[in-house]
């Protein structure tokens, strides 16, 4: 799937004022591309991911998937689109009271018809169970299939999330700081698993990450976000120390408050 973002901005209404999480972000991602997103906390990474997986409406600008405007899709088209995008979150995205196998089966939801959904609520079809077991095997969790998701450790939960994405079999995999809550040994394991999964089947892979070393080592293209704007977008070979220093400088930057005259300018298309 090809992404093209054009002047995308997103504001939130926080404590009686508008706060910009993203401002005029323009970028395009080609099918099969593998890239990392760097940036300090509050730089807008999570917002960007929610825009990319078509669950958030931008305040301004347009997002196109394969040339189709997301804002104009019907709810059915939207579901069909989301089905092609798999997301891995930092944490808390599994259904805690379902077993590992059931959580993996959730990956099928987008392609199940109404009849299949009803049937699977009672007892899932053998074909799907077989696929789910295969996915669990790939992330080495097959023996934990009957444990509840909240009985698994942090690393196991993250692998289970990957199994669910495998089950979903999407064209794009978005991973929002998938290793932020894990220890270093697990970090390597999960990262290489992600990259392996991404490279199979020519999937687009976008990973937000805190660790610069990992990003430069594994990803050919790196985007730096700072204060809700794209600070740099270049091949990892061309990312140098100074750039990174600037990226994380002003680290505790407060999100910028939108001024009224600011909005006025934007409404009339004035350049700032």
């Amino acid at each position, binding site marked *: 799937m090809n992404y093209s973002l054009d002047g995308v901005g997103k504001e939130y209404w926080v404590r009686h004022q508008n706060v910009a999480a993203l401002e005029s972000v323009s970028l395009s991602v080609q099918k099969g591309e593998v890239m990392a997103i760097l940036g300090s906390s509050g730089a807008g990474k999570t917002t960007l991911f929610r825009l990319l997986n078509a*669950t*958030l409406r931008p305040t301004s600008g347009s997002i196109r998937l394969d040339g189709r405007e*997301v804002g*104009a899709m019907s709810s059915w088209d939207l579901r069909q689109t989301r089905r092609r995008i798999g997301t891995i979150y930092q944490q808390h995205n*599994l259904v*805690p009271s379902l077993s590992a196998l059931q959580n993996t089966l*959730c990956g099928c939801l987008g392609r199940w018809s109404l009849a299949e959904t009803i049937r699977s609520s009672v007892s899932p079809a053998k074909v799907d169970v077989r696929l789910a077991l295969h996915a669990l095997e790939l992330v080495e969790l097959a023996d934990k299939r*009957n444990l509840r998701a909240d009985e698994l450790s942090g690393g196991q939960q993250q692998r289970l999330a990957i199994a669910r994405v495998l089950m*979903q079999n*999407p064209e794009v995999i978005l991973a929002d700081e998938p290793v932020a809550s894990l220890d270093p040994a697990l970090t390597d394991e999960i990262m290489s698993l992600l990259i392996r999964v991404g490279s199979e089947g020519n999937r687009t892979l976008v990973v937000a990450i805190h660790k610069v070393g990992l990003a430069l080592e594994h990803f050919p293209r790196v985007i730096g976000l700072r204060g809700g704007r794209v600070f740099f977008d270049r091949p990892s070979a061309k990312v140098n120390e100074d750039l990174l220093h600037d990226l994380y400088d002003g680290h505790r930057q407060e999100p910028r408050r939108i001024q009224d005259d600011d909005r006025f300018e934007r409404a009339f298309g004035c350049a700032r």
Partner: protein
Amino acid sequence: MTTASNAHSAALDNCASYGRICTPRRVTVVLTSALVLVICWQVDGIRLGTIVQPARIHTLWTLFRGLFPPDVSAAFLWTVFRALISTVATAIVGTVLSVLVAIPLGALATPILWRRGILSTANDQNLFAALRSSAGYITFVALGFLRAVPDLVWGLLFVTAVGLGSLAGALALAVAYIGVLGRVYADAFADVDPRPLEALQATGATRTQIFLRGIWPQALPNLTAYTLYSFECCLRAACVLGFVGAGGIGYEISLSMRLFAYRQVMTLILAFVLLLALTDLASKRLRARLRPNAGSSRKRRWFKGRRSALRTLGYVALVMAVGASFYLAGFSPEHFGEANAIKNMLRFCRAMTSPDFAKEFVLSLGPLLIQTLAISVLGTVMGVVIGGILAIPATSTLVLVQSDSPGARPLAKQVLRLSVFWAARLLLSLLRSIPDLVWVLVCILVAGIGPFAGTLAIGIHTAGVLGKLYAETLEEVPAQPVEALRALGAGPLQLLAWALWPQAKHMLTCYTVLRWEMNLRVSAILGLVGGGGLGQAIYNNLQLGFYSRLATLLLLVYLLVIASDWIGDRVSHRMAGA
């Protein structure tokens, strides 16, 4: 590759139940519940045919048409106003009296103060300590009895003792809520942090001092919240008590209902619903303000500057309202001085200590007991089904489009979604706010006097109560898993089955079991207005003055309530464990 597929088939064999719809356990569960339902169906004498008869439908239609337009003539509005005031007064008096008695009784029933825990030391083992501890235990059991006898039955008793009117209602509420609040207060006292108590004891404080300085300040916020909540419950109960002649708005409703003046019924119900909504709002506001770290807005700052003056004003208003309520509820010396009232009370109390255990009487209660159980079970099942179906369109997560979700939003679709959501919410709150006894009166018109009407009434009211609870519970499940499934393309029904239901199922079961316990109490008294079950026998024996038989019946209700509490606890625990 071969090893991998071998592993798969081995795993598949291990979890052989996957892909099979009929597992032995499921078959057993389904068959057992079907059997129970069929028995209940038979016992309740359910004849669906009677409802769909043209004549019945016509009656219902006449009733419905008769409700509009509500009667708003000045004379009747004045009646409604007086009835409202009298209901509120009854509730205030009932709450005040029950609080006054429940605080000492609650303290007496608090185990850590008397029986076990840190305050009972080894050198405490003498006769006095044993006496004290047994007094506490007896209080505990007595509170349980007061709570288990339905407030409507207390209402009937006091109507017999002191005559028709608000006084009977106020006394009945006081007695019933002494049981409720005593228990709740005892729990609140027992829940305090024990370490300060130990410290106080080490300084040589007496039990009274420990209670006043250690327990009371810690429990106060909870006590206030519970008391406010119980006032709301009292208000509802005060309305319902009118049905047995204890004055107020319930009395007016039953009167208008019997006179077939449905337009008046509509006005009365609207007034009652409005009163409940206002009380709900006021108590929510008050509870929010009592919370320790309530946010400070500009309005609050305005209050802050004038706090002491406002507070004094509030206290004066409160005292005046309570005084006026006592006056309105008919508390006057001559009422109690009447020889008849005292004699009735005494006769009643004496009879209460000697229940009638004659064999044929006890045996005759068997069918009524089973009928009561069947009404509660079938009514609850009906409520769960209807409420569950209505809860789905009333859950905003499933029906409404989130405001920041992308995609096109045709106006027509948005309007449709909003109207479905609000229609479901409105219907649920309508079913819920009309008291179950009013539903019995309506259902009698359709199904005739008997357990069928009772079952229908409980089912309709429960649908409203549970539907709202279900919808709120589903809306409040942790959002991240729901978002994750939405992001991978799940539709509303799939979200319900795979994200909302698994996360909410424990809470939903607990609410349902709790509601069944309440319905059991209700179905024991529905007979008072013609809904079948034990209530009919209670009513008859009270009217005939057979107080020792009444004592047996009340004992039976008590046992029933205790048993249902026990079963409910066990089911909830099992669900929590599973």
